[in-house]
């Protein structure tokens, strides 16, 4: 029989005896014996713990205070109240313990990304081992339905991978040979062989678990306040209770000792700060847990607090608001066909590893025959010179054209707002390719969501050219774009913004965590996007959005605000009710039934309220 059931049965038996004693017309002495029996059945463990703790020199714990309060009530012949207080206390404890067990369970479910084993392939044989024993370079086999135990690269097979435990994204990721796989995700349908790239300790799953588990170590201001408050609350209330029992009967004429003792006992019943001590951390934990279910890692309760106060956000551009993969947006030609120009450019760029070159080859999309090109020369910062099909071709920026004394003709009325690659064939200007970074499909909606939730200043900091940056900022309706910033300029600009923010405002920075670590570190809240697979992002930021969906920013802020709201409600509710009962108790207008509600009832309600933070 588990602990909860045992306690429930005890409560029922004791309550039944209690009812008998109240309802049956028994001789006084029998009634009293029934009262004592009911009291001992429900309270023996509290009394025992109190006794044991006093022996150990540990007074003023919950058990001790409850014992004194109920024994005191018994002594002044308030039997029914004494038993009721104990009964209600136990019912509350049961509820509390159940609620805590429940939230612990949902937290463990959240942590259920830890892989238990890895299938290592050694000398053609498959062996099941602890993931910690696997070394980088080892090959592991992952069957359908299994958790990916370590980060690595697929070497054999293909499959789709469910990343939802880490990202909250339900769409599976198709993965082929050469693709990276991330530990903690689930392999859905294909058997794959993976070459391990990181040992377990360094793998994504370990990092995430470590991060979530230690998130509660970084306490929010309100948590620190409660800890401090709890330290002084109990002793103060107890001292006040003692004074209340002793002083008025001595100095107030006609005051009855039993009357004032009763008032003092009420104080003892409400002297535990339990409601706050449990529900506040639980609320924060729920918020962090609920966010991580959505693929948002928050590194501490303090960041949850700052996040709820964010009024301004500065964004990095590439990889944050845009995909960071370049595509050919437009082809404008002079003398040749568009297809022809693209083919020539793709051939000229066929050896280059530059992302722009890759985007041109991708746009052409057909096989490139290497024997059509000769004498390829990459001129860093300018472009490429090559002989294509026997013709001299230059492909690159305006500087390259100027150097080759090729005049760029104005071919279109619209000024290109992307990166421009000019192409010249045999000394004649042939046209240009405009290459743009794609804006993420959810960026626009993300900015709108943020504005709707009251984040009123949204700006962009980018190293990119003015035309490019401003075009994107206006398409996304950002307030301002600071462009052509070197990494050091970004820090400087951001510090200017920090200096200008209001006292209660929090300024967040959102980046991809790769080259903006200094800015992430300076921000009130540094948020990194695309944490999945990027250690740098996970390390550098306070909040990590695992996939690269900017719409999660508004989600994160919403969760943070909800959590803080719940925490505040609990603080006000618990302190308010206790305060009222203390005042009413002192002037003799409150009774023990109300006091035990203020203690245990409030605690249970606050816990139930906190659990809401976990559910979105």
């Amino acid at each position, binding site marked *: 029989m588990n602990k909860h059931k045992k306690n429930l049965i005890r409560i029922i038996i004791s309550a039944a005896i209690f009812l008998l004693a109240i309802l049956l017309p028994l001789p006084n002495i029998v009634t009293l014996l029934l009262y004592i029996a009911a009291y001992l059945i429900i309270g023996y463990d509290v009394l025992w713990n109190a006794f044991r703790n006093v022996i150990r020199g540990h007074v003023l714990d919950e058990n001790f205070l409850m014992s004194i309060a109920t024994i005191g009530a018994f002594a002044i012949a308030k039997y029914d109240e004494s038993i009721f207080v104990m009964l209600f206390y136990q019912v509350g404890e049961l509820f509390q313990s159940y609620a805590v067990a429940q939230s*612990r369970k949902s937290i463990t479910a959240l942590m259920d990304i830890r892989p238990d084993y890895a299938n290592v392939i050694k000398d053609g044989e498959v062996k099941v081992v602890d993931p910690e024993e696997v070394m980088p370079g080892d090959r592991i086999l992952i069957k359908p339905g299994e958790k990916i135990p370590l980060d690595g690269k697929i070497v054999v097979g293909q499959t789709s991978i469910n990343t939802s435990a880490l990202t909250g994204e339900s769409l599976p990721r198709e993965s082929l040979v050469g693709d990276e796989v991330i530990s903690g995700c689930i392999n859905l349908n294909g058997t794959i062989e993976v070459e391990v790239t990181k040992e377990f300790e360094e793998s994504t799953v370990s990092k995430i678990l470590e991060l979530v588990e230690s998130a509660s170590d970084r306490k929010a201001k309100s948590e620190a306040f409660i800890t401090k408050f709890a330290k002084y609350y109990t002793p103060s209330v107890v001292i006040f209770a003692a004074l209340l029992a002793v002083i008025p009967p001595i100095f107030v004429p006609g005051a009855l000792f039993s009357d004032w003792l009763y008032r003092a006992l009420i104080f003892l019943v409400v002297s535990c700060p339990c409601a706050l001590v*449990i529900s506040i951390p639980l609320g924060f934990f729920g918020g962090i847990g609920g966010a991580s279910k959505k693929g948002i890692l928050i590194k501490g309760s303090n960041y949850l607090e700052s996040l709820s106060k964010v009024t301004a956000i500065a964004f990095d551009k590439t990889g944050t608001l845009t995909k960071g993969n370049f595509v050919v947006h437009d082809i404008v030609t002079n003398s040749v066909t568009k297809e022809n120009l693209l083919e020539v450019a793709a051939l000229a760029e066929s050896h280059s590893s530059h992302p722009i070159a890759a985007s041109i080859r991708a746009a052409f999309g057909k096989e490139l025959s290497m024997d059509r090109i000769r004498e390829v020369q990459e001129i860093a910062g300018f472009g490429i010179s090559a002989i294509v099909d026997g013709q001299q071709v230059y492909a690159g920026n305006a500087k390259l054209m100027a150097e080759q004394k090729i005049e760029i003709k104005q071919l279109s009325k619209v000024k290109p707002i992307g990166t421009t690659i000019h192409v010249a064939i045999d000394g004649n200007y042939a046209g240009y390719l405009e290459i743009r970074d794609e804006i993420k499909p959810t960026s626009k909606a993300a900015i709108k969501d943020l504005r709707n939730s009251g984040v009123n200043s949204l700006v962009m900091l980018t190293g990119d050219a003015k035309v490019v940056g401003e075009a994107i900022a206006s398409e996304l309706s950002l307030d301002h774009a600071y462009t052509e910033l070197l990494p050091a300029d970004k820090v400087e600009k951001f510090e200017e913004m920090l200096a200008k923010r209001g006292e209660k405002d929090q300024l967040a920075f959102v980046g991809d965590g790769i080259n903006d670590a200094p800015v992430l570190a300076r921000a009130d809240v540094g948020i990194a996007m695309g944490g999945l697979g990027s250690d740098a992002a996970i390390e550098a930021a306070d909040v990590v959005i695992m996939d690269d969906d900017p719409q999660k920013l508004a989600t994160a802020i919403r969760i943070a605000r909800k959590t803080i709201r719940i925490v505040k409600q609990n603080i006000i509710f618990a302190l308010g009710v206790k305060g009222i009962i203390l005042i009413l108790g002192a002037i003799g207008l409150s009774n023990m039934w109300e006091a035990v509600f203020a203690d245990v009832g409030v605690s249970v309600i606050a816990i139930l309220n906190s659990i809401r933070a976990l559910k979105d």
Partner: protein
Amino acid sequence: MKKVVKLENLDCANCAAKMEDGVSKISGVEKVTVSFLMQKMTIIAPEEQMEDILKQAEKVIHKVEPDVVLKL
């Protein structure tokens, strides 16, 4: 170094706070957090003192809640 200890049967949130307070007063402890929800204690202290600190911490914890079992 950092050491994480599991605290089984940790049933009272206020006790967790008292344990944290008590353990933080042991000499050599740089930082300690007791998480009631995770039922674990994280101690940061110099490696050479760790063993000694853990022994003292166990005493402190048992004084607050005798039923708690420490598991490394």
